[in-house]
């Protein structure tokens, strides 16, 4: 089976939200409610249990001559966010039931029939993707369209994307495509184009990669995401010291008591 990935190219995104709709339609994900956030045209805010694809509307201060923008216009770019399907996935490591698994396509899949809603994956995700659905009780996130991939189809969001901003394919060929695209963007004067796949962090790269304009932090992409297993050694060492102190303290305390009682 081929290892697959997403490449979401914000320079091609037109903010139509077809990916959000296609995802909800295919996966039967419930509605989010109608809320006006005031953040450009984004009224969903972030990926969550009911939003597996989320289009970010990045409205920035005007920068004259900025990659084809008219000088007096704000730059306005869009980027479709999704579960990153980390190489070292915090949620997958943290899950105590084995509900979260690595699929043969390299994605991270949450088996809803196993999940018991302990919500430990929620605090283990450095990208804030997994969330517990308060009505259902279980955690939910993007499945990487595991069912469609199994049937040889591409994920619903990539299929619905009208501009091929969401590209899907075998990971190595997609990386080559990303490199070519980056060079093309440079040639066309978009020197601030950035490729994001978190491969320089403990997450060890992601199966959902992005091309964005400017600082990835503007798109809520963390510069240094850490998989929480990196803290395990420090924490368990502390736990062992604590256990040792408790044991030694109790022995000393009760032995000294007995001595003072004259036994």
């Amino acid at each position: 089976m081929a290892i697959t990935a997403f490449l979401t190219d914000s320079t091609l995104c037109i903010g139509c939200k077809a990916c959000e709709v296609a995802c909800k339609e295919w996966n039967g994900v419930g509605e989010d409610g109608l809320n006006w956030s005031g953040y450009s045209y984004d009224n969903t805010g972030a990926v969550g249990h009911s939003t597996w694809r989320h289009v970010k509307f990045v409205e920035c201060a005007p920068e004259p001559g900025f990659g084809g923008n008219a000088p007096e216009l704000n730059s306005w770019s869009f980027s479709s966010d999704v579960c990153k399907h980390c190489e070292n996935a915090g949620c997958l490591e943290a899950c105590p039931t084995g509900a979260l698994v690595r699929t043969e396509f390299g994605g991270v899949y949450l088996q809803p029939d196993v999940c018991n809603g302990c919500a430990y994956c929620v605090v283990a995700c450095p990208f804030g993707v997994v969330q517990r659905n308060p009505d259902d009780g279980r955690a939910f996130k993007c499945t990487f369209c595991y069912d469609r991939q199994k049937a040889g189809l591409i994920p619903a969001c990539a299929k619905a994307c009208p501009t091929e901003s969401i590209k899907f394919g075998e990971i190595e060929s997609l990386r080559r495509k990303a490199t070519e695209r980056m060079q093309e963007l440079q040639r066309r004067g978009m020197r601030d184009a950035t490729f994001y796949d978190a491969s320089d962090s403990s997450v060890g790269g992601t199966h959902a990669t992005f091309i964005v304009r400017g600082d990835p932090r503007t798109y809520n992409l963390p510069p240094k995401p850490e998989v929480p297993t990196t803290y395990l050694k420090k924490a368990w060492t502390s736990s062992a010291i604590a256990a040792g102190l408790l044991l030694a303290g109790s022995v000393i305390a009760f032995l000294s008591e007995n001595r003072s009682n004259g036994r």
Partner: protein
Amino acid sequence: MSEMPKIRPSAAEVDSDRELKLIEIRREAEQRGAVAGKGVRPAGAPFPMASPETGYYGVPLLKEPAWTWEIPLYFFVGGAAGAAAVMGAIADYTGADRKLVRDARWIAAAGAVISPALLVSDLGRPARFLSMMRVFKPQSPMSVGVWTLLGFSGGAAAAAFAGFMRERYGPSLPLRVIENAGQAASLLFGLPFSNYTGVLIGATAIPVWNQNAGELPIHFAASGVSAAVGMLELLGHRKSRALQLLGLGAAIFESWEGWRIESRQQPGLDPLKRGTSGWITRAGGVLSGPVPAILRLASLVGGRKNQDDFRRWAAISSIAGSLITRIAWVHAGHVSARDWRQPLGIG
């Protein structure tokens, strides 16, 4: 030919600078055919912008913990029960007062029953608790914790039950085997059980928790010890020198821990120092650290009657401090998750 309507502002419009500006613009357009100025800023302007300084409109990247009120209470009960089991077993092995051994066991057994109930009721799907028994994952503190809890609960409950049966129906070999094996298991599992919750929240993506991953387990262990000592003292063991020693040690450690939190300058630690979560942390710290430490030291020098009173108040303060400390850490985690700056490395 119809006449142009006369532009005359009403009294309410004159009050508004924006309305006056609109009228000015209209006049300028009429007279010159163009407007040179910049126009009007709409109410609420400037609109939110995304930038490397504001992140994505300041929308938090991380998700808040979904845990409900059961979890901080579980941290408190589990910590006290684990520490009580260890103290009870050591007290038994060193031949201490039988009543103290028995009471420590009952505290452990009560915790062994309450802890799983709290944990299960927090699950989104409580009926699927058994999904946890499908696997053992050493890299998941939650998985390790669940198996530790299982071993601890079984051991502590068996020891207390067998002890009760022995007292009621007299000693027998099977009861002695169950009692001893249960106690050994409650000691073995009680050691990690009293502090693993520090690992549980330390090894997460929440900044205020993972920045303290190396200290939380010891901090939680000390909190558990002071609560267990307090409970035993309230059950009447206010003359035990061993409990006094353990309580004093825990209170001194908790005082140091509080000082450490207050003195370290790190933006990620703000939830422990500022706002409501900061004051809850401070309240928990003072009640677990300096207050019982001073009361215990005072009880060493005071008369017999005062000694008893001082230790009772030290016990009450430690128990309250331990509970508030657990609530404070969970609350600080929520505040930390809402801080969009931390994970983006801004500010």
